[in-house]
């Protein structure tokens, strides 16, 4: 099994940038935790990279396991939820809005 990621299509360094990934994933990861996660991800990506040996020339991707498409429905309102009930578990609300820290000063 390869110990290094091999699938970098740009031919650039394939060292995992945990800070960038964490920013994309909206996860606060700092200091020692970052180094440990980088090691873990390197091992996982190395395992995943073993699949690169499979010849997939001319093979169509399969997204639904039974190769069918999701069913659509007509665009009609079928339910009338009660906002107060749906928001009963929200951390902070007012007048049916969700409250978050100020975005625009």
């Amino acid at each position, binding site marked *: 099994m390869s110990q290094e990621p091999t699938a970098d299509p740009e031919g650039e360094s394939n060292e995992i940038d945990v800070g960038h990934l964490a920013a994309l994933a909206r996860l*606060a990861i700092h200091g020692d935790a970052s180094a440990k996660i980088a090691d873990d991800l390197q091992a996982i990506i190395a395992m995943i990279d073993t699949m690169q040996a499979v010849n997939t020339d001319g093979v*169509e991707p399969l997204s639904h396991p039974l190769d069918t498409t999701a069913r659509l429905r007509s665009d009609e309102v079928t339910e009338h939820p009660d906002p107060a009930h749906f928001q009963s*578990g929200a951390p902070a609300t007012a007048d049916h809005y969700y409250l978050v820290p100020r975005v625009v000063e």
Partner: protein
Amino acid sequence: MSEYSSLREMSADLAKGAYSSVELTQAHLERIQTANAALNCFISTNAESALAAATKADQQRAQGDQRATLGLPFAHKDIFCTRDILTTAGSKMLSNFVAPYDATVVSNMAAAGMISVGKTNMDEFAMGSSNENSFFGTVSNPWDHTRVPGGSSGGSAAAVAAGIVAGATGTDTGGSIRQPAALCGITGLKPTYGRVSRYGMIAFASSLDQAGPMTRTAEDAALMLGVMAGFDSKDSTSAERHDAWLDGVVANGIAVLDRPLTIGLPREYFSDNPNFGGIEAAKTELEKMGHTLVDVSLPHTESAVPVYYVLASAEASTNLSRYDGVRFGHRCEDPQSLQDLYERSREEGFGAEVKRRILTGTYTLSVGYFDAYYLKAQKIRRLISEDFQQAFTQVDVLLAPTSPTPAFEKNQLTDDHVAMYQQDLFTVPTSLAGLPAMSLPCGFSNGLPMGMQLIAPAFREDLLLELAAQYQRQTDWHLKRPEAVV
């Protein structure tokens, strides 16, 4: 009433008035009280609503309702949304979450008169093979409390194996019904993708997730499947099927298998594993029952684990983006900005394995890597699916081990994530192909139960259940009990 009565036996006892549903439900609640401290297989119990539902079932019975499922207690994996009852998915993120609606599986079982006595422990967001990733603590295997029950439906498996309940719901994304069923010595069925509605089942990887029954016998699995399954317009991937055997299975039970089957042995599942005495004995037993065993090949099996961890992690990173500290779930204290709110709520709310999978999925979906990982994995997924299609031109069903090992020690694999992922070696190929598969107890290794896996073409759960019921009429592995539960 015996601790180890099956659902069918309890149904017969209720019908003849041996006890009431209220008495039966109280006995189940007492068992949870007694056994849960040692096993930790329940996250919550709902005595009040269970006894109210049991009272209603007794009233319906008194008015002439004779449905086989009426008044039968069971447990839900804590991944199914339940209106007005906590639903945690084993996560700190949802440790305070009360769903505003019921999952379709929950409403189907309630409509059948079945009584949910509590919600079982699980790996966080169903990500794990040992139940060690739960925010609510590790579950113990009833056969040996120093060992794991498997995962992610480890709480359901342990509760059934310990005789606390005769049936529990589970979910299976890459093996999460079958592997814990094998490690705890019970029967577990992952139905065909689309057979059971995913509406209200907290999503991990939506193209793989599927709910199913965990029981001691194949007959009880069929009973529960008959209630859980069915078309649901609220799930866009729900299959619209009309299978006569399924419509009649609750009332009539499993049909008797009336012909010999050709059973395929995929050589890639047996090559590196000498420690499968139980499977060897099962092969002999199946031949004695008149079935023919033949070798087949599923040549892309080796790629299934890497493909699974690309696709499942990518779908997880997308599905779990909804947990943002805004609408429901955990929110960090005193957020300084919207970005800070998102990042700290998610950092505090998710456990280590969930973060690893989110980051793995984020990596494989990121710019420049999508084709090399996600698209490549989807192409190999087709090759894996075609392997099964080819095999089923030669055989009726496939027989394979469920898990590479019996139950392992707690903490044995927690620092070696890739080794933990290899626990899914024999279960992820069928998940990727969306096929039904079932794990049955087939023997013991050093006192620990072993499971064998039967795999069928799509929507042929009837074949699995008929063969499993025939096997369980000839063997008694499914009747073995752990010596000391508490």
